[in-house]
């Protein structure tokens, strides 16, 4: 695998392997000495076009703990306004031969598009409302450390599913690993068709009728950030009303299993999607998630760079969301449960395109 872009590119075996590898990097404080900088001499570039503290810093610390040199580029949206295309940006960057490029962009598919034009390993650090695969990996790591397994876990994900890349990546990864996901929150923030993400996997995805239904008997609760910058429309009347009806309070948390784990990708909006008493409470693992993020990203970087033994794939990727390795789990793409709409006339049915005739 040249790039790490989508959870849908992964397999349960690969996820298990990466999580096992991440265990070796804990605790963070002692690991650097033991490892002896396995990625010394390699260069990592972070290319972020959206505000981020934790993800960018997490990648930088992970890279430095592995001995990499790090360059941070902040791409204002202005670079597009200036007329430089994404293609030109990446061709320029690629000419400087970085080993790994970590990209965050406000538009879905940008890391995938850039990766096509570069020999570097690309890691998706969040593209629009599409994917945030390392977040899903670190959340899975946090859950697995606590419960010792992912299979069979009941996980509630609450809030703005519709605009959340964290939700999409987590739903895909958890369903792949055999967990049962329930989605809760206001109807305006649901994502149409997301229940089909589990098709072909042993896990399930269920859109709950109410917050209570989503939470009842949950082993863990993931609370999503209300992304005020993305909510340009009338999705709910006010933040206060959101909290009153959909915020995770200790009273509502009590609907879940006793000692259910509370996760949040951060940054948190206190008294919007989550009450302070819950965020700071005994069941919260929000800080642990951040620590685990570094370990998981160390494991990923080391694995991605060190699989050099196998030759890199040529840049073939045409479109994001398209699974090229691993399980063909895209809707309409591969194995489907009976509930999926039948794409009887889809192009995938036709013969192999005969190019160059």
């Amino acid at each position, binding site marked *: 695998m040249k790039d790490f872009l989508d959870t849908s590119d992964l397999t349960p075996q690969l996820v298990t392997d990466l999580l096992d590898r991440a265990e070796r990097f804990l605790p963070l404080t002692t690991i650097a000495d033991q490892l002896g900088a396995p990625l010394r001499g390699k260069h990592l570039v972070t290319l972020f076009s959206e505000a981020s503290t934790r993800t960018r810093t997490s990648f930088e610390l992970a890279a430095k703990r592995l001995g990499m040199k790090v360059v941070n580029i902040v791409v204002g949206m202005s670079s597009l306004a200036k007329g430089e*295309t*994404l293609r030109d940006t990446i061709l320029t960057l690629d000419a400087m031969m970085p080993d790994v490029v970590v990209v965050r962009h406000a*538009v*879905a*598919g*940008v890391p*995938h*598009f850039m990766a096509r034009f570069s020999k570097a390993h690309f890691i998706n650090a969040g*593209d*629009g*409302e*599409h*994917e945030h695969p390392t977040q899903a990996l670190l959340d899975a790591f946090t859950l697995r450390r606590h419960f010792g397994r992912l299979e069979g876990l009941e996980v509630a994900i609450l809030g703005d599913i519709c605009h959340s*890349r964290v939700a*999409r990546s987590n739903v895909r990864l958890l369903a792949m690993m055999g967990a049962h996901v329930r989605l809760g929150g206001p109807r305006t923030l649901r*994502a*149409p*068709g*997301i229940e*089909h*993400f589990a098709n072909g996997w042993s896990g399930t995805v269920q859109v709950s009728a109410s917050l209570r239904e989503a939470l009842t008997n949950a082993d863990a609760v993931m609370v999503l950030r209300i992304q005020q910058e993305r909510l340009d*429309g009338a999705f709910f009347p006010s933040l206060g009303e959101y909290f009153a009806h959909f915020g995770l309070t200790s009273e509502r948390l009590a609907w879940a299993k006793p000692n259910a784990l509370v996760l949040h990708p951060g940054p948190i909006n206190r008294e919007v999607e989550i009450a302070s008493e819950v965020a700071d409470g005994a069941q919260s693992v929000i800080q642990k998630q951040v620590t685990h993020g570094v370990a998981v990203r160390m494991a990923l970087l080391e694995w991605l760079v060190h699989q050099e033994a196998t030759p890199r794939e040529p840049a073939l990727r*045409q*479109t*994001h*969301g*398209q699974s090229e390795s691993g399980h063909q789990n*895209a*809707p*309409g*793409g591969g194995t489907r449960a009976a509930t*999926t*709409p*039948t*794409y*009887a*006339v*889809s*192009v*995938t049915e*036709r*013969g*192999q*395109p*005969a*190019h*160059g*005739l």
Partner: protein
Amino acid sequence: MALMIRNGRVCDPSQNLDAVLDVLVVDGRIAALGAALEEPPETDIVDATGLVVAPGFIDVHVHLREPGFTAKETIATGTRAAVAGGFTAVCCMANTAPVNDSPLVTRYILDRARETAACRVYPIGAVTKGLQGEALADIGGMAAAGAVALSDDGHGIANANLLRRALEYARDFGLPVVDHCENRDLAAGGIINEGVVSTWLGVRGLTRAAEEVDVARDVVLADLTGAHIHIAHLSTAGSLELVRRAQAEGLSVTCEVTPHHLALDESAVLKLGAVAKMNPPLRTPADVDALLEGVADGTVTCIATDHAPHTTLEKDQVLSHAPFGVVGLECAVSVVLDHLYWRHGLSLMRVIELFSTGPARAFNLPGGTLQIGRPADMTILDIHREVVVDVSRWASKARNCPFDGWRLKGAPVMTLVGGVRMTTETVLQTVREHKAEPNPEMVATGPQTG
């Protein structure tokens, strides 16, 4: 100069004719139609044994991009693509630069067509000035200059009162209003159909309601005004049902569907990315089934390509950044023959009607018939020929076609415009002749090549 097309299966929905006959063309017009016709001296003979001879195909929804966007397409390249694809006439949309919202631009397009086009070109004028949706364009002036219809295609008309007045005013000039039905508020910046695929890809969905709300409004306004409204590129089951009901009530509502909405569903975006991005977007399999039904039961008036050329660089972008639109002139007939005739059992007569008689009637265009005395615009098909779509060989400048690489059964093999076989040589010759001697009769109808 005469031309005899021998022994073809002549299918003409306008005369309810389906028989193996000869067609004699004299001076660019159909002179005789019958079995074992005698040929006049010095007659060219085309042996059409085993082939289907149909009235010239008309595409009422094409973006020729000239003036203004000639890197994407020109009148010359777009009409060459048209004749290569079996079309003898195209209607070109108004979203050029400058916008075709005045007789000046309409005349310019017709002048350029006379100089460079390979088939007949019928301009469609804008409904509103600059496609801004604020004030009526020079409708009467454009009608006099040769516009055959009005459309703000590319945009919905948000102001229902303005659309009402446009319908009333256009009625005085006998022009249909072609509406791109898309409610801007409901569309909400959507990129592809709202549903499992848009959720999977994390891009904004375009709900079917954005189209259907406008179709419903248009039906009400057609009732109110008595005017003819034509729904462009209809794409959902709900829209189709609204049109079906309007037609049952006797309202003057017609509609077109595109080959891509008939042959592809939203899942194509997963495989093809921006090459399968167009507006309206590819919908669900249930919508595709409904459109196929509408094509069979007569609700759908015509098939139109919405040929929307873009450069390869423009299209090869992230899904959200790439422009809407696909090209289809050069494969539409094959896609429809393969998909509708061979796979779904639609009658050949109906296929031909959707491409010829249907659009001619809906837009009051000459053509769409093989009646004696009419210009000899003909499309000759080999319904058994297997072809592979290869965009690299196309006459169009654009390559943004979702059917590239498809193996299809059925293809146009000859296109005659005014009795002239449109090959590379005749196209060049036609253009030279018309540069030398423009024919005043052609102002409204584009180049007459007879």
